[in-house]
């Protein structure tokens, strides 16, 4: 697995993929995201047997560090069998309220306590003219046997303590409304 982190600019993915090609590495999966000005990319690539990860890292650093980009190369841990995902249901937690210290920590602590796995988290809106309208969206897979009433109650209590307006909704409602 190769991680790239740094200030966004044109040509980052092109440079990484060129270096991987030069080292005869095959990209098997890739994802990138940009948060404000910062780029991060994760590449999963198979590398030739004779190529040592350290040598690949050196090659990538030589190509990318002039652009101020940081590189991490790490062998993927494989157990032989793909992990079996536990049965879960997708929910969406949305919070609206003033930005404050401990907001994400407070909400995610409750999600973790109930065994929820956050599959996506983002700040959807940073308040604009009204800093009290800061909006966070957490997509969460919850175990099927979760106590929904208790989960909802715990989230609501935490949200109230953080002065947030919180919604917890099954993901299907968003798909039903917006997708054909």
């Amino acid at each position, binding site marked *: 697995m190769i991680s790239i982190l740094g200030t966004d600019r044109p040509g980052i993915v092109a440079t990484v993929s060129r270096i991987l090609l030069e080292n005869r590495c095959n990209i098997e999966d890739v994802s990138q995201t940009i948060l404000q000005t910062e780029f991060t990319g994760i590449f999963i690539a198979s590398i030739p047997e004779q190529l040592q990860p350290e040598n690949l890292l050196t090659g990538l650093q030589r190509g990318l560090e002039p652009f101020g980009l940081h590189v991490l190369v790490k062998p993927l841990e494989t157990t032989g069998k793909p992990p079996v995902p536990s049965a879960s249901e997708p929910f969406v937690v949305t919070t609206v309220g003033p930005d404050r210290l401990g907001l994400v920590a407070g909400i995610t602590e409750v999600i973790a306590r109930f065994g929820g796995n956050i599959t996506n988290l983002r700040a959807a*809106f940073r308040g604009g003219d009204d800093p009290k309208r800061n909006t966070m*969206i957490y997509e969460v897979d919850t175990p099927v046997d979760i106590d929904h009433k208790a989960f*909802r109650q715990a989230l609501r209590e935490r949200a109230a303590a953080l002065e947030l307006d919180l*919604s917890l*909704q099954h993901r299907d*409602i968003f798909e039903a409304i917006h997708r054909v």
Partner: protein
Amino acid sequence: MLSDREVLSTLEMLKDEHLDVRTVTLGISLLDCASHDEDRFREQIHAKISGLARDLVRICDDVGDKYGIPVVNKRIAVSPIAVAGAPFSSGQLVNIAHTLDMSAKDVSVDFIGGFSALVEKGFTKSDLALIEAIPEALSKTERVCASVNVASTRAGINMDAVYLMGRAMKAAADRTAQSDGLACAKLCVFANIPQDIPFMAGAYLGVGEPGAVINVGVSGPGVVRRAIDRARDADPTLALGQLAEIIKRTAFKVTRVGELIGREVAALLDVPFGVADLSLAPTPNVGDSVGEIFQSLGLASIGVPGSTAVLALLNDAVKKGGAFASSSVGGLSGAFIPVSEDINISEAARRGFLSLEKLEAMTSVCSVGLDMVALPGNTSAETLAAIIADEVAIGVINRKTTAARLIPVPGKKAGEKAYFGGLLGEATIISVQTRGGSENFVRLGGRIPAPVQSLVN
């Protein structure tokens, strides 16, 4: 991954625009409860309703919580009592209405519909008994709703039934004079009544329907209004064709919500899902009004010239969006214009923009009819019958549902206010152009034959 817009616009629809599921209505057939013995019949309908609907409210609330969409009303519609209770006299039918009322109370639903008769082509003995029972049944019960279908495109108009219903309305109003004739708010007279309406007061379970079924009524006038406002703010040059498209897309979204919730409630209750009825049904809350949509589309008020055209556009766009969203669209599906239940329409009546005649014209293109219209208390049974006849004629000729829910408010005159409370709202009484001019026509009785439109086979 969901997009930010998908999440945020859904939240906006819920929190600021009053998107909700207006009603989940459990239809229950009572035909297998039939008995010649009144006590036995009442016992059996109570047992059947409380058995099937025991978990209705809890399940609706749980499903509403899961999706974050409130299910505002949970209701029950039963087989027409004139059919299920065919052997009984009007006095016995009043007792049966009490049992329905108690059953509704026991399972915590606010209305139970189906104190009904279908008489478009003629009466059975029990139809006449039920119509006779209506004034007492509605004045002595709290949650029972009645409907009578007096006309259809296939059968024509049963004018004897129309006259009887004019008299029933008058009697029901007089029996509830202390509450401005409230019993009439629970009574609808129909042409072409659908068998699967989830909305009250017209809901009943048709005889062609399953033994039990979930029908869902979704609303959302506030959502439609805001969608129009947002689009016009972003682009003031939008023309009506483009605005109709926006209404259609919004109707699609709202219908999908109803179907999702309805199917899940039906699955949990282990009964089939019937239909989603997308009707823009207002409540007396600001921002939950059909009348406001007229203003968003450029009219000073509902009722001014142009209103019928706007309503035609609105009703059609809502139907098109609903039809694309679900293959199980039914009920009334369109736009309601209930005067007292919509703060904006009620205000239009108060300010004189909305006359009975303009309302009647608009019902030729809306999804129901003259709905929650408060009339002067001295309006005669014959005049009420003539208004009903006009209204059902529109439905019969246009092959659509029309209905009249009229309240002749005892002791009050045009311009005064009638107060019904809660979702039923309040309304200024509007005048009726009457100088005793309809009596002779109404008393002719008989049946206005089915129109040529009925010859479709």
